[in-house]
């Protein structure tokens, strides 16, 4: 294995690459996507137009983009806090479902006479549901040292089955023709629409507020500083007396609550009832979003829009070009691969072997 180039560690990380890398990764993903269209016998230009341009051509398209970005922002900003603290929570999907169950449970209590006051109750219940689900992971990690990657992921399957059990059983709509789904929520229990004529709801505003709040927290508050230090220099954090346990609980409860809110908003927003497949993998896509957004709330908002575009593009590619909508998943995976590869250039510099031999 003698390649002409070797990777030499940089003395200081390349700051420019830190933000150039996600952009480069997005460009590479789009190019790979064009290649994929060509391989499937489609005109690449037409394919990319449907996938990346058409969703942005109308006002409705933009509102749908915001709608899909909402759960991604909420999940990803929470995950970013976890990843910064070196807590590998990859079960946001499960926490999202737990939030949908809790928030949906409150929404099912609504009657025709219910007022809008039920909306905050739904959001709070969803946050508590997601946080409770994440607390299982935190407790098992804290008390038993159990690997949080595996525990949080196993809990995704458990949450999916729990939701399936509820909508097949006690919460099944008696007038639903036997479909495993709850009754439709009363209109008072639906998330208020913020842009008339579209499906964009108050959840989008909440997501932006959450991203802003976390930005402030990271920049201005002690706990945010502790999170940053714990991730960058764990030994320094320990020496400074920052409690690892506190950060573990804080990061997991916060990200669980945010993912839970995403679930509650999804159930009482665009879906309008509880179904066994409440999320098309938003919790997993959010992992990619968090990395592409550089674990920074502002970056994550932008990355969420890119990822939302992939979701809508996949749907359009299916309806207009007859391609499998699973294309979205391929794009998502490719994006993270390209990002990781480009990130190499932050810490390392490719150098020609000959030059290195001389300088060494």
């Amino acid at each position, binding site marked *: 294995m003698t390649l002409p180039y070797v990777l030499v560690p940089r003395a200081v990380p390349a700051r420019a690459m830190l933000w150039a890398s996600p952009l480069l990764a997005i460009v590479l993903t789009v190019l790979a996507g064009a290649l994929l269209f060509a391989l499937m016998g489609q005109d690449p230009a037409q394919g990319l137009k449907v996938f990346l341009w058409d969703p942005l051509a109308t006002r409705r398209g933009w509102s749908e983009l915001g709608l899909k970005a909402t759960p991604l922002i909420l999940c990803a900003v929470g995950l970013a806090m976890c990843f910064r603290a070196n807590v590998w929570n990859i079960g946001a999907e499960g926490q999202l479902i737990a939030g949908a169950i809790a928030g949906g449970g409150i929404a099912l209590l609504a009657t025709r006479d219910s007022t809008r006051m039920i909306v905050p109750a739904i959001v709070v219940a969803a946050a508590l549901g997601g946080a409770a689900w994440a607390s299982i992971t935190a407790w098992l990690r804290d008390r038993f*040292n*159990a690997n949080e990657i*595996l525990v949080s992921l*196993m*809990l995704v399957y458990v949450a999916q089955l729990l939701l399936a059990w509820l909508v097949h059983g006690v919460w099944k709509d008696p007038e639903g023709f036997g479909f495993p789904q709850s009754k439709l929520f009363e209109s008072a229990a639906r998330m208020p629409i913020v842009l008339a004529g579209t499906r964009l709801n108050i959840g989008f505003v909440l997501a932006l507020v959450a991203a802003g709040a976390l930005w402030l927290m990271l920049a201005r508050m002690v706990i945010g500083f502790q999170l940053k230090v714990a991730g960058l220099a764990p030994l320094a954090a320990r020496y400074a007396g920052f409690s690892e346990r506190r950060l573990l609980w804080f990061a997991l409860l916060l990200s669980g609550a945010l993912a839970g809110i995403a679930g509650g908003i999804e159930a009482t927003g665009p879906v309008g009832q509880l179904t066994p497949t409440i999320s098309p*993998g938003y919790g997993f*896509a959010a992992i990619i979003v968090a990395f592409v957004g550089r674990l920074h709330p502002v970056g994550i908002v932008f990355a969420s829009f890119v990822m939302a575009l992939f979701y809508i593009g996949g749907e359009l590619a299916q309806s207009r070009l007859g391609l499998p909508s*699973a294309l979205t998943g391929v794009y998502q*995976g*490719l994006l993270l691969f390209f990002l990781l590869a480009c990130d190499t250039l932050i810490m390392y510099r490719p150098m020609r072997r000959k030059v290195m031999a001389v300088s060494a």
Partner: protein
Amino acid sequence: MNEVVALAAATLSAGTPLLLAAIGIVVSEKSGVVNLGIEGIMLVAAVAGFGAAHATGIAELGLVAGAAAGAALALLFAVLTLGLLTNQYATGLALALFGAGLSAFLGQSLQGESLATRGADGIPGLRDIPIFGPALFAQHWLVYFALLLVVAVAWFLSRTRAGLVLRAVGESPEAAHALGVPVRRIRMMALAFGGACAGLAGAFLSIIYTPLWSEGMVAGRGWIALALVVFATWRPARVVFGAYLFGGVTMLQFHLQGRGVDVPSQLLAMTPYLATIIVLALISRNPRWIRLNMPASLGKTFTPNT
């Protein structure tokens, strides 16, 4: 009695994909690399294997295709983690997500297709023994191959020079590198072996176990296999025990459903996942127990030029 026989047979069959994937993970991780993408590899291999078996009508060809697809994806992981020095955890997650997407994409047209029936299973002679025959010896040959593979891996790791070198690379890549051992090449081969095993496991699921392709059909078995290796503290013999234990838990759940036990199927279906969490918590409680056999450099990026 018949029920015990059926349960034993079903346990062997259900434990095999876990066993195959887990023994591959043991080899990869003993070389110091953790590949969290096993679930994605199994999914792609399941669809590749099923597709090959469906197109050719030869199940064995499907298994080979699955193993090859698994090795190819593991090599992609190797290029990123060993060549471009990316973080192993993040890259593994990327592979898991990519595999889920790619398999759903490739498998869209295979959904609902079925395979031609295959010939009789089992070991001739032994399978005719009353009770023990149908319980233990009437399975597809891959079930027994998996056990042989475990024995071979155990022997390789503990009794051969190459196995010793592989473990040295996992314990201290710097020391191995200083001694002139090609660390990256060895890790690449260990990863490819792990990928091929996971691929075989995925193809077993779609070609022999189910046998059909449906989206997300691996249902977390790749992750359970990763957990299994931690429970087994990287020891092949314990991997066998763990894989069949989990195979048994899965099958017991189906048997209870079959007997009309009055517990909703969704709650019963949670048992393998809950069992994984509980066992993981119990085993992890004592960090020394885990660290005893854990490769010292597991998950750490190795940069040969420094």
